[in-house]
Structure formats: structure tokens, C-alpha cells
């Protein structure tokens, strides 16, 4: 039943462009994502406050205010469409009725906007992966699993257009792998644990989506790739290690699509560039306008190929001009206006702008370099030539390291002496990854702390 991706949906770098994807996603209201235009995707969250029965009226007020603010600004700036991502906080997933209540509140406001202003919108709802509230995580059964799936169902019923998640299977191992620079553990977490959990999880999510006629959009390896990027930004780990992890998240996130996700993939999933190349599904991305949520070395290049353009998230605090969500909305509208204006003028113009985005960042940081459309196509091709998630992840590591080395030789990037030392060390680790998945699992098994990870949750 699972789909197998064996060739790229996008083959030519000149077909790899913002706003256009081979398999656009159309909503019931007619809004099409990936059909020629980039739309803003706004995300907002509560200011510092707890969520409990006493504060729920205030929580409702906050969301009502935020959706009111952003829809008002979108109308004033004549946006012709946009998406709202509602990323549930843990407490709103732990109490699925609350999560669904907020979904309904957002839905109603967006429906009102459609009626009064003829602006077409999309509501993406992203429950939190609360399964890790058990330590070690219980991924397949128990109260947290039940509540999480119930939350998906209730939010689907409450009016979500898209469902998504940032799932965390394997993260219990991967956090340490990042800060230890442990490539094997990272491959194990992503290529074995994460990928297996994705298969389990997305089969369920897709079936819920079918039941309620909602679109299964995609997953994000945020807890893996973005954790690494943020740590690299703080100089805790080498940038080259963060870039490598990013490429290694691709096979894991691809599993959602093998199980039936269709996009638009999640904003914070920078592996989405590869997902778009492989699957042809539209993707959301984020960059300069998401600096409110995380700093990054890829603020412009991330604009090369998105179909939705996001601010990641911003708290409802007051800035001099307006609320921070209003400010984000305005910034996203200007950013997407520019891209769409270029597209209006024809593909040559759009490609020229895309190349400015690319060339702005790609030489300055290896994490930007791997988002180059040509680089992503090349690595994607190598990754999907392998048959399994493990082998794809191993190939992602080997191919990315090779790519870094060549890029350095071609002077397309400039790695420091220290980064080059790491390039060698990581290559030595990668070269030791066995061909056989069983052998690899057998190697890794004794290194794992049963207090941290429960292998039976992964059918191991």
C-alpha cells in the first residue's frame, strides 16, 4: 500500500521554483497551493502564560485576538490568499477538546473572512507529539497515544483543512547524538527508529484524514534538523554536522509521503526542499521572516522553492507598530508579493529572482549550500536510488559528505580548518556504516540505554 519513490518528480533545476510544484494541493474552497503562487503561512502562539481550566477563557481570547489581527491586516494589504498554521501547544493536545475548540474558533474567523473579503484561506492544524510525555516514549499505545490521535480527529472535525505533525520518534536517541557528534547514533535515530515510527504514525494520520476528508500534509524533522541548526548557530556544534543531519532527515520525512501525505509539507522542515524534488508535493518553508522564531544562515535561500512562506511562529506580544502576529503577517505578505510579481512576469523573471535568493546565502554556509536546488536534486537522486530508509539515510550521509568535499574543492563553499577536521572525522564514521541493516542494529543495540529508548516501540 505504501508508495515507493524511485525517481525524482522534478528533474531539471530550472523547473524547481517557488510557487510551482508538479502535484499542487487544492482545497475545497479552490485555493491551490503549488499552483503558481506562493502564499503566506502565518503561525502564532500565546505569550507567556499557562493553560488550564482557569486560563482557558484568556487562551480563547488570545487566539481570537491573534486571528482577528492577522486577518484584518491581510485584508488591508489585499492578500489574495493565505494559510494559517495552528500548532497546538502540548496542553492543547493533552486536552484534545481544548485543541479542537481553538481550531473551531480559527475556522469560523477564516470563514468570515472568505465571506466578507473574498480571501481564500487554508487552516493547517498541527497537534503536538505528546507521546514523549512517557519516558522512554511510548509511541504506539497508552493514554498519550490515544489522546494525540483523538486530537487529530477532533481537530479534523472542527474544521482543519490540513493535518500535520512534527513527530519525534527517535529523538530520544538523537538529541545526544547531535551533541556528541555521533553519526551512527544519528543514522540509527533517523534511518531506523524515526523512519519506522513515521510509517506507523502516518498510516494512522492518513486514515484519519480519509475519514474526515482532510488533507494529510506532512511532517517535519524539526526536532532533529532544526535542533542541530540552532545549536550550530550557537557554536555548540559544527555547521557541517548540522548540514549533514539535515540531509539525513530526508528519508525519514519522506516516509510520510510514502504513507499518503500529499503536502504542503511543514514550514520548519527544510528537508522539504528534497521532499519537493522527490515527491513533487508543494512545501512550506521559512527564512528571514521567521527570524522572530529562530535565527538562521538560510534566510534568503529558503525562498528559492517554497509554495507557502512562513514566519514559523511568534508570540502575541506588542511591538511598537502592532501585535507581533500582525507584524509577521505584513512581512510575509511583502515577501510573497515579490515572488509572485516575479512569477507574473514569466518564468525567466522568477528564475532570476530565485537565483538571487540562492546566491545570497549559498556560499556563506554549508547549511545554505545544501538547499541549492541543483545540490538538492543531485543528493535526492542518490538518496532515492537506495531501497530502504536505513540505506537511504546512510547514502544521505555518504553523498552529503562527498558533496561538501567537492564543494570545498570547487570553492563553492569555504570550510574553516576546524570544519574540515570535522569533515574528515564524520567521513570516517560514515564509512563504517555497514550495508546490512540487521548488522547495524546489532551493532547499535548494546550502546542503547533502555531507560532512554524502548526498542519494542519500533518493532525491534
Amino acid at each position, binding site marked *: 500500500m505504501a508508495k515507493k519513490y524511485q525517481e525524482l518528480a522534478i528533474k531539471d533545476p530550472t523547473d524547481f521554483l517557488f510557487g510551482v510544484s508538479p502535484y499542487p494541493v487544492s482545497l475545497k474552497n479552490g485555493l491551490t497551493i503549488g499552483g503558481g503562487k506562493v502564499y503566506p503561512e502565518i503561525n502564532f502562539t500565546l*505569550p*507567556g502564560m499557562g493553560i488550564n481550566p482557569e486560563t482557558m477563557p484568556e487562551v480563547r481570547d488570545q487566539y481570537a485576538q491573534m486571528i482577528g489581527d492577522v486577518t484584518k491586516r491581510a485584508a488591508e494589504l489585499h492578500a489574495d490568499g493565505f494559510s494559517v498554521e495552528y500548532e497546538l*501547544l502540548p496542553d492543547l493536545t493533552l486536552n484534545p477538546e481544548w485543541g479542537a475548540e481553538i481550531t473551531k474558533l480559527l475556522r469560523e474567523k477564516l470563514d468570515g473572512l472568505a465571506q466578507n473579503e473574498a480571501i481564500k484561506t487554508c487552516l493547517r492544524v498541527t497537534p503536538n507529539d505528546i507521546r514523549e510525555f512517557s*519516558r522512554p516514549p511510548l509511541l504506539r499505545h497508552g493514554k498519550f497515544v490515544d489522546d494525540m490521535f483523538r486530537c487529530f480527529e477532533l481537530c479534523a472535525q472542527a474544521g482543519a483543512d490540513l493535518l500535520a505533525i512534527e513527530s519525534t520518534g527517535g529523538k530520544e536517541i538523537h538529541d*545526544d547524538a547531535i551533541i556528541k*557528534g555521533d553519526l551512527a547514533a544519528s543514522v540509527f535515530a533517523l534511518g531506523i527508529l524515526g523512519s519506522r515510527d513515521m510509517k506507523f504514525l502516518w498510516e494512522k494520520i492518513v486514515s484519519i484524514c480519509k475519514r474526515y476528508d482532510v488533507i494529510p500534509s506532512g511532517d517535519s524533522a524539526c526536532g532533529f534538523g532544526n535542533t542541530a541548526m540552532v545549536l550550530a548557530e550557537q557554536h555548540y556544534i559544527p555547521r557541517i554536522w548540522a548540514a549533514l543531519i539535515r540531509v539525513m532527515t530526508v528519508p525519514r520525512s519522506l516516509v510520510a509521503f510514502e504513507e499518503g501525505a500529499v503536502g504542503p509539507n511543514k514550514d520548519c522542515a527544510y528537508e522539504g526542499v528534497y521532499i519537493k524534488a522527490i515527491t513533487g508535493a508543494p512545501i512550506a518553508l521559512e527564512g528571514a521572516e521567521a527570524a522572530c522564531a529562530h535565527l538562521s544562515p538560510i534566510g534568503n535561500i529558503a525562498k528559492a522553492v517554497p509554495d507557502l512562506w512562513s514566519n514559523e511562529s511568534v508570540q502575541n506580544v506588542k511591538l511598537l507598530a502592532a501585535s507581533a502576529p500582525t507584524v509577521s503577517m505584513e512581512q510575509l505578505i511583502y515577501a510573497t508579493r515579490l515572488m509572485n510579481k516575479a512569477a507574473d512576469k514569466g518564468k525567466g523573471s522568477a528564475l532570476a529572482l530565485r537565483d538571487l535568493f540562492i546566491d545570497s546565502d549559498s556560499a556563506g554556509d554549508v547549511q545554505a549550500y545544501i538547499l541549492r536546488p541543483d545540490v538538492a536534486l543531485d543528493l535526492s537522486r542518490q538518496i532515492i536510488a537506495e531501497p530502504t530508509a536505513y540505506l537511504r539515510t546512510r547514502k544521505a550521509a555518504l553523498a552529503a559528505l562527498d558533496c561538501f568535499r567537492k564543494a570545498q574543492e570547487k570553492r563553492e563553499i569555504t570550510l574553516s580548518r576546524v570544519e574540515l577536521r570535522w569533515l574528515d572525522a564524520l567521513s570516517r564514521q560514515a564509512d563504517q556504516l555497514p550495508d546490512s541493516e540487521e548488522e547495524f542494529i546489532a551493532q547499535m543495540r548494546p550502546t542503547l540505554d533502555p531507560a532512554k529508548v524502548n526498542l519494542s516501540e519500533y518493532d525491534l
Partner: protein
Amino acid sequence: MNKNLAAIYQSVVEGESSQTAKKVQEALDEGINAEVILNEGMVSAMSEVGRLFEQGEYFVPEMLISARAMQEGLSVLKPALAKAEVRSTGKVVIGTVNGDLHDIGKNLVGMMLEGAAFEVIDLGTDVPPERFVEAIKTNGAQIVAISALLTTTMNNMKGVIQAICAAGLRKNVKIIVGGAPLSADFAQSIGADGYSADASKAVALAKSLIA
């Protein structure tokens, strides 16, 4: 510097665990004072590691390897140290507040503190206030480090501080807080003693508070 001390220093900086253990044993056999081995061989090596980190020459993974080498050396040194009655820099109870599962920032702080010879008691994530209180009592900690990564859990830090007050332990401990949504203002408003914007500054903060 004594040849053996220099070798210990070097092996900690380079993260050679077994070499460190071996050289510590040799130094002890040679009759070098345990406290001297600790301070001149290992603690100063970890300072050098910190300096290399500040300079961008080392990253956290290298620091971790050095810290592990120091642990190996310490395990050899412990019996001799016990007699000499050496204090650790201080004891720190660390954890992420209830409702919050974020691990990695807390782990980094714990790791940095251990590197600076603090004794770290890690309570993990999603830690209720009672467990902080209990751990302070059990371990006689001088510092409590509380982490929160969510705007919805940062207020739970206040609950932890209140529980520490209610247990009559507030004067025994310094409380430091950290995490993305926090600010120095917020830390002050909930009655913490200090706030660190990132993990690498937490050590200096902790040291300054118990100096």
C-alpha cells in the same frame, strides 16, 4: 610542571580517557597530592578546553569527550581525594519544568557545569516542583537550575520557586533559570537569582552566585 601532571592535562584536553586514568594512577603512585592532580592536572585542563571552545577550536562534542576523560581520571582519584576532603565546586540540581519535554538545553548546561567540576544531579524533563525540593534536600545542593522552552511552561518555574520557599529551602539555594522564551526581566519577576541567555554562560553565572 611535573611530567605526569602535564600528561594528565594533555590527555584531558585531548579527551583520551584511558590515558588519563593511567596517568592519574602513575601520579598517585609517584606520591603527588590528590588535590594537586585534580587542580593542576584536570581542572586546569578543563579550563583550557573551555578556552578552546570559546575560541571556536572545540565544539561541544570535544568538550564532552574531555569531560569523560576527566571523569575517568576522577574515578581513579576518588579514594585518595576522599581522604584529602576536597570540595567539588558545588552541587547543582537541574531539570526542565513540568509540562515541558525539552531536554537538550538543560543537558548542555549540565554538561558545561560538570566540565567546571560542579556535581550535577539531573532530574530530567517534565519535573514537578516536589521533585526539585526533594532533590535539594537529599543532595544538599547549593544551586537549582530550571529550564523551560515553552511560553506555556515558563510560568511553571514560579511554582518550583514557590515550592522551594514553602519547604523552607529558599535561603539554602541559589536559583538560576534559562530557556528560549525567558528574559532577565522574567527571571527577576519570578524571584530567581540569575538568568543565563545561553548554556555556555551558565557556568560563569553559577560560579558567581556561590562565590
